[in-house]
């Protein structure tokens, strides 16, 4: 019996081979991901935590600085042709992969083609392809890769030809999906690529020493990195911790250097010197079903103006969320002097008197008072928001709205296949430009409120084709104005916020509102 027990125990211990080495030491930065990784393969991934890991172990042509402006990275410099269509990047001298192979312009050509080659699996193919000359045609399998506007002219020169001039292309290409890939290595690994630290190549500030989808990633400093002098950390320990109170415990036990707080914990830590907040470009909004007869324009406008966004952000969510002025997030690039929002003003805001007027007009038009149901997905943010909005409608409009809460999958399915009144939904920017939202409402699907409007689609197309940045900005402002203020297809509520605690000895931790959410390269631990 004893022998059997020993044998069982031994077998179990052998099964758990993953109890492995971790980067240890004083100068290691400890952070966490709040959900498991889906993949470490940049070609098929679109997850924000993956982007954080990739930003540490790899690098693009350019890298964002603390003000979210692109700075030379693997590319030393670049030039733009007069018509704004051709970008020529010159790579640095002596770039190498972690296996010693030279890193060349070919590696960019390969990864960019790979990124748009398989639209069902590749998280960002449909985002990237429209930017590149012949990108969409290639993605749809109509032409050969050699016709796409992506070329390695020689070892060090990488030339990109765009489909349309794009004012924010330099910021766009900091997206980790567009980091280089070594074709020979990638193809040799096949399905096993990026499933462990041995099956991935690194070229960034750090080198991966372990990668596990459900455990996390560990990294050590890359001494061969071109800017190794700027990297002060010895390594990074990036754990997966899915439970928010477990993460807070880990922070208090000294196992994490930074932790995000949930709304319930915020009150306990407000005023603490380690406490801070920031917001990003993920906009939460109300989607109306415009094909639904009882959701007439006046009713929709009433629901728009009746939500007190300030109170929602400051008293309910408390995580650093900021009231939205539309679907385009605060802080999205506009022109050299103003953000998009500053230039456009607010289209979504709280005005109880206006709300009441529109409601009365809407009810008069219908001839009856409609019973409304709000669709929402499960999750603390959505739940708290739904209850608060229900309360706003009760106070401002004197109506009782039913909340229908279901899993996100179920809600999306319902929005897609059935009629509904209105739903709470969200969209995070793929790049720092208003178009990342505006183009969504050209799809004409139920998920976008069955909004079918050729005039709107034409405005989006006009903005895409416009070469002059100011004129383009003006078209986009008018497009959002039409979408929200005039037609009220959708209305913005807030931009997602985060509350966090960070050890006082941590310096140089940068958060970006879009793309790669956090930057570890410049972190210094002043212990």
């Amino acid at each position, binding site marked *: 019996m004893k022998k059997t027990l020993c044998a069982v125990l031994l077998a179990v211990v052998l099964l758990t081979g993953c109890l492995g080495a971790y980067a240890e030491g004083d100068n290691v930065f400890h952070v966490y991901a709040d959900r498991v990784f889906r993949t470490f393969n940049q070609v098929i991934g679109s997850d924000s935590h993956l982007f954080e890991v990739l930003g540490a172990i790899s690098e693009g042509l350019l890298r964002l600085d603390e003000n979210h402006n692109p700075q030379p990275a693997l590319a030393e410099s670049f030039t733009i042709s007069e018509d704004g269509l051709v970008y020529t990047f010159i790579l640095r001298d002596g770039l190498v992969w972690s296996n010693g192979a030279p890193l060349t312009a070919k590696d960019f050509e390969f990864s960019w083609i790979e990124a748009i080659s398989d639209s069902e699996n590749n998280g960002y193919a449909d985002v990237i392809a429209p930017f590149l000359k012949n990108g969409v045609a290639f993605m749809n399998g109509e032409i050969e890769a050699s016709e796409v506007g992506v070329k390695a002219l020689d070892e060090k020169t990488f030339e990109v030809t765009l489909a349309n001039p794009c004012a924010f292309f330099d910021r766009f290409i900091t997206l980790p999906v567009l980091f280089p890939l070594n074709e020979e290595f990638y193809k040799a690994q096949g399905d096993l690529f990026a499933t462990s630290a041995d099956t991935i190549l690194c070229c960034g500030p750090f080198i991966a020493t372990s990668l596990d*989808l459900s455990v996390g990633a560990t990294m050590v400093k890359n001494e061969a990195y071109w800017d190794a002098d700027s990297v002060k950390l010895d390594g990074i320990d990036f754990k997966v911790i899915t439970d928010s109170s477990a993460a807070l415990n880990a922070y208090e036990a000294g196992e994490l250097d930074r932790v995000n707080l949930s709304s319930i914990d915020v009150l306990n830590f407000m005023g603490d010197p380690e406490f801070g907040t920031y917001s990003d470009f993920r906009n939460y909004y109300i989607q109306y079903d415009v094909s639904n007869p009882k959701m007439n324009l006046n009713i929709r406008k009433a629901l728009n103006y009746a939500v007190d966004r300030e109170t929602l952000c400051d008293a309910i969510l408390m995580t650093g969320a900021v009231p939205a002025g539309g679907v385009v997030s605060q802080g999205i690039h506009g022109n050299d002097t103003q953000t998009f929002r500053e230039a456009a003003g607010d289209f979504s805001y709280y005005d109880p008197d206006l709300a009441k007027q529109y409601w009365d007009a809407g009810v008069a038009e219908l001839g009856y008072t409609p019973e409304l149901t709000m669709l929402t997905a499960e999750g603390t943010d959505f739940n708290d928001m739904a209850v608060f909005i229900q309360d706003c409608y009760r106070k401002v409009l004197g109506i009782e709205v039913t909340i229908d809460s279901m899993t996100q999958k179920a809600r999306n399915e319902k929005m897609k296949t059935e009629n509904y009144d209105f739903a709470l939904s969200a969209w995070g920017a793929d790049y720092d430009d208003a178009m990342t939202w505006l183009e969504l409402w050209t799809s004409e699907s139920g998920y976008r409120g069955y909004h079918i409007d050729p005039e709107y689609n034409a405005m989006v197309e006009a903005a895409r084709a416009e070469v002059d940045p100011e004129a383009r900005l003006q078209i986009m402002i008018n497009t959002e104005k039409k979408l929200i203020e005039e037609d009220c297809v959708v209305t913005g509520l807030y931009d997602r916020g985060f509350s966090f605690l960070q050890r006082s000895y941590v310096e140089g931790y940068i958060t970006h509102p879009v793309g790669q959410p956090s930057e570890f390269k410049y972190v210094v631990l002043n212990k």
Partner: protein
Amino acid sequence: MARYIGRRLLYMIVTLFVIVVLTFVLMKILPGSPFDTERFEKLTPEQQAAALERYGLDKPIPVQFLRYLGNTLRGDLGTSFYYTNIPVTRVIFSRLGPSMLVGAQAILVGLAIGLSLGIVAACRHNGFVDNFTMVIAVLGISVPNFVVAALLQYYVGLKLGWLPIGFWKTWSCSVLPSLALCFQPLATAARFIRTETLDVLQQDYIVTARSKGMSQARLLLKHTLRNSIIPVITIMASMVVNLLTGSLAIESIFSIPGIGGLFTESVKNNDYNVIMGLTMFYSLFYMLTILLADVTYSLVDPRIRVAGEKEGE
């Protein structure tokens, strides 16, 4: 015996088939698709159709089922949707180890302490040890393990700093989760073995043995335990399966990359192939354990003959 086991294995295949059919149908009733909906919605209708076709999701459900069954018989459980394109077997096995280690330790510790406490309690019936054991047993069964886990994490891990508060780095990381899980088997084993031992101790043959001057230790180990342990085996069989296949709450509190979390994830994400793979794994494991328990009975007590096996045949 061999015939008996053979027949049981045959039944198992039938049961497994029924389970697979039911799970498949229930799973398809779940709303939504396995794709990342936000991104999927942005694809053009043609791209969406192509994606569905690639995974055979455009076919009617019976066709999808037959295709799945065919692949399974060939040993191909498919790839995960959520963990993009990773084979289901690899996903499951990568998460199995931690759950099994934590579960096995919990069972071993729970059984060892539970059985000892229960036997001592029976021998000291109505004494202090007996009352103490019963208090432990009631607590162990009524306090949910996630409460124990949270308390252990906070006091032993955070306040005292004796053990890691979670994660999966060294063996010491598995101690607190195992402790949190061991109370239930401990309490159950203690309660059952106590009752049974009390019962057996009053049997005539025990009284006889005792009157012949047999030592207490020999009496307990040789004559009592073998008779009193049978109900514990029955109870333990299902508990072993539960513990070895992971606990969502414990895994999430201690950030253990186990299989309990994988199962919930897969259902939430409509990760069809992982749901099917895990369900089959659970069912097989459960049925095999029950079979093992039945066979163990006859080893513990030679008087018990597994059904159909006649003496003298």
